[in-house]
Each structure stands twice: as C-alpha cells, then as structure tokens.
C-alpha cells in the first residue's frame, strides 16, 4: 500500500504537434477531496482520461496506490457528467453491478447458481444500504428512464463508491443539474469527507478519495479540501497547460450554513491565478500545498 492514493510524475500529453499538458506532477493523499479547475479546453478532461487509463499520456507515469496505471481498472472509479448508468438495470442493480462483476465469476453465474444467488442477495442488501445513504431508498426498483437527473447522479455516485476504489474521478458531476440538486449532492460529498475524518481519528485509511473536475469556483472551494488549477497562463504557457495553483482550502461541515463569503479572497486569488490570461506568472507561484501542509503539521 502506497502513501499516496494517486501519484502523477512528469506527465505530458501531445495531440499531433499540439502540447496539451506539460510536466504535471501531483500527489493525492488518501481521504483528500481535490477539485480541479481551469479554463475550457485547458486539458482537464485529458488529465482525467490519463488517470482513468483510457487515454495514456505521451510522457510520464501515473500510479494509483503505488500500482502503475496501464488501462481502466477497479482501482479508479469514475462518475461522468451524463451519469452513464446502465439502462437495463434498476437502481439497486446498477449500484451492485460492480460487486457482481468483481466478486462472482462468469462461470459461477451459470454453473454455480446457489452460491451465486447467495452472493447476489448480499450484494443487493449492500446496494440498498448505499442507496439509503444517498437518500434513494425509495428508488431501488426504478430504471434510469424513470429517474430524474439528480437521482441518476446519486445512483452513479453510489455505483462508483460502493466499489471502494483507491480514488474516484468526478467529471463535472453536477454540471447538468439544477441549483437545488447541486446543493444536495455537494452536501453528500461533504458527508463523505466527514466519514474520512472519523476514519483518520480511528487510525483507519479513509475510504473516499476524490478528484473532481468542476467549472464552478464556489463549488470547488466549498466541497474540496484542496484546489488545483490547470492553465496555460504562465511563463511557459506555449508548452502546454500546467498546474499553476495548488493550495488547501477550508473544510466545511455539511450542517454549517452555506456561506461563500468565507472564501471570497481565495476565490479571487484562484480566478486571477488560473483564469486571467493577462496575468502571466511563474507556474509555481501558487503551488504551495505541501509547504502549507507542512507548516500546518508543524504548528500542531
């Protein structure tokens, strides 16, 4: 087991002659919720696909829990913006689908029926418990076509998290939802973070490590405990997008009232560092996460 849930070393990606990503280095600790922001087309999706393993980078290495990423595996979960639930499965079967694939073999399903059925009963019970956690206990038997966008997204989140992957990637997970639904799902992520804190206090490895791509700066700072900005607006921008912002951000409790005024300063700093094309600076100017973490640990 590695110290880091995710480690990216010297990652670069080129499309033809166009260099999209340049020398990305990133370490994510277990239990962190990392938000990734950046201008449209800067390479956030490219980075996500590289971590997922579907589009390997042209240079560099990626490790999840110390294991090199060679293709999509169960070490990395994914929640897409358009949910991508399986139409032919109900909510509880969608959520337990991974357990079926992971814990039963193809041959067991045809030739070991009693053992398979017993396993499936356990899976479905686990799935129902998870759906209850995300507020969907009444929707277990519904098919995706019978669900709203918010319901589908919660099922997609449950489907990914029930597998306990080393890290879950959220690709603009709330982009297609209305404001009320977004808030509900943001609170769900904050509740996961609280469970991480409990796990750390009890000496266990936190279960929910998340890397979330979002366009919403408020959402990034509110939900995450660390924000990363990807951008070409730095002194070597012609060589591709780099991490130009990497800082911790305040942790909110799901029961606290939503008050975005608490992080106005950081939001403005983030906007300037990542989105302001006129502000060309050294790429490492705002990459201070590890220094700040070290300083915080020293204070304690």
């Amino acid at each position, binding site marked *: 087991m590695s110290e880091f849930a995710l480690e990216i070393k010297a990652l670069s990606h080129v499309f033809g002659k166009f260099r999209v990503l340049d020398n990305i280095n990133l370490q994510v600790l277990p239990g962190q919720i990392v938000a990734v922001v950046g201008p449209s087309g800067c390479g956030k999706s490219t980075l996500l696909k590289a971590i997922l393993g579907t589009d390997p980078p042209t240079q560099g290495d990626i490790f999840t829990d110390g294991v090199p990423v060679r*293709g999509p595996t*169960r070490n990395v979960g994914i929640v897409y913006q358009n949910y*991508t639930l399986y139409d032919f499965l109900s909510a509880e079967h969608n959520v337990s689908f*991974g357990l*079926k*694939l*992971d814990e039963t073999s*193809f041959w067991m399903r045809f030739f070991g029926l009693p053992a398979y059925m017993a396993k499936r009963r356990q899976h479905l019970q686990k799935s129902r418990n998870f759906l209850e956690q995300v507020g969907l206990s009444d929707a277990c038997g519904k098919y995706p076509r019978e669900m709203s966008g918010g319901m589908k997204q919660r099922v997609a989140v449950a489907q990914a998290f029930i*597998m306990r992957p080393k890290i879950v990637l959220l690709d603009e997970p709330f982009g297609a939802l209305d404001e009320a639904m977004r808030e509900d799902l943001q609170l769900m992520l904050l509740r996961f973070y609280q469970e991480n804190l409990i796990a750390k206090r009890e000496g266990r490895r936190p279960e929910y490590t998340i890397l979330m791509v979002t366009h919403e700066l408020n959402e990034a700072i509110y939900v995450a405990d660390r924000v990363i900005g990807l951008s070409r607006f730095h002194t070597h921008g012609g060589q591709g997008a780099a991490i130009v912002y990497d800082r911790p951000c305040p942790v909110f409790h799901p029961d606290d009232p939503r008050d975005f005024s608490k992080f106005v300063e950081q939001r403005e700093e983030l906007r300037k560092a990542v989105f302001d094309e006129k502000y060309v600076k050294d790429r490492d100017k705002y990459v201070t996460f590890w220094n700040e973490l070290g300083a915080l640990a020293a204070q304690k």
Partner: protein
Amino acid sequence: MIRLAIPLWLFWLLAIGGVVTLLGSYERISARQTRINELQTTIPSFEKIGEGLKQIFRPQGLPENPKPPMFWVDMRATLWRLAVGMGVGVAASVFVGVLMGAYRWIEAPLSPIVMFLSKIPPTAMMPIYFALVGTDQKMFTSMVALGIFFSMTQSIYKAVRQDVSDEAINKAYTLGASEIEIIYEVIWKQILPKIIDNVRLQIGPAMVFLLAAEMVVGSAGLGYQIRMQSRILNMSVVYVYLATLAFIGLVAEWALVTLRRKLCPWYVD
C-alpha cells in the same frame, strides 16, 4: 389538422368499416365475375373459399392409408425451414455483429464485405445455393440464413457502436469487468431489444426468400402449394394460404413484441 385526435369509438368504427368495405367490395367483384363466367375460379366467392378451406384440411391418400392433410404437411415444412434458417442466421449475425462492434480489428476486414454482400438480393443468389448446397432441405435453410445474415449483421454491429457508449464500456472496466463480461453483461444486454426488433423485421424478407425457393424447387411447403394451386387456378386454396402467411406474420410479430417486453422491461420503443 395533422395528428388531430379522434374519439376511440370513431377510430374503431372506421377500422371495422374499412375491413367490411374491403370484404364487401371483394364479394361484389367476385359475384360480377361469376355472372360473366360461372366456372371462373380466379376471384372465388367466400363460399368457394370456405370449400377451399375444407379441402386443405381433408386427410389425403386412400381411406385405408390416410396421410395428413396437405395444410399441415406444408405448414410443418415451411415453419421448420423458417425456424432453422432464422435460428442459424440470427445466431451467426449476432455473433459476428457483436464482435465487429466491439473490436475495430474485426470490424476493419469484415465491414466492406458485409456491406457489399448485403446489397445483393438473396433471391438472385438462388443459383449459387443450388450449385453449392443442392436442392434439398439444406438449400432452403441456408437461403434463409444467408439471406438475413448480412443485413442483420450490419444492423447489429451498428447498434453496438451507437447504443453502447465508450463511457459505458470504460465504466464497466472500472467496476472490475473482464472483456467477456463486457460483451455479455453490457453489450448483449444493452442491444437485446434491437436484436429482437431486427428479428421481427427480418421475418418478412426471410419468408420472401423461403417462398421463392419453395416455388422453384420445393416438393412441400406453403410456397410450393401456392405455385401448384395457382397453376390449376384453384385460387380458393391460394387465398387461404395467403391468409395463413399473414396470420403467421402477425403471430410472430406479437410473440416477439411480447418477448421483448418480458426480457427488456426497461426498454421504451
């Protein structure tokens, strides 16, 4: 106005009225033809059609050695050939179509061949079947199987490419699926309604190929009997057989729609 709603009672009244008008018009034309020529059999009256119905259900052969009525002999022959031919054709096209849709390296060499051969009318290929397979039972079943194989393979491989997104497949990998599991648990289950719909659409063409073959080289079967009875202008039997073909089509349609509803309750047409 286009799509103007009408009351249900009016819809049924017009539907029944349409059928009654058609049958009434037929009876009038038949009566007129009979007045011109009393012995005409090309447009038999409903009474004559009734006699044709009795004829096809009458046991054949001598009383001491009766043989089954010709209707059952012909039905058994045609339905058996159709079932076997479609079974083989559907199984082969699903196997090849799914693999073509799943693997680009299989799609690349096969898609030009499948596309080209799907454009050749299967009835035009009959001389090829005679030469390769002979004129016995194998010829009929291979005619049906190959007749539907190419177009159905194309439809299935397109369904795999269009109805199963890359994201759904990548997600399955992240949930721990192996390749064979992705093919069975994701691709097959996602496209199953399309497969059933394709089978439904292929029954008509399959019947065309089979009846054409039976008319040319058959010694039993609905197509053979239609040809034989037409030659002696015994149209009262021919019309009963044509109605039987329509009935087979309707039953098959209903059966496949019911099957799709049972196996794919999640699917909305």
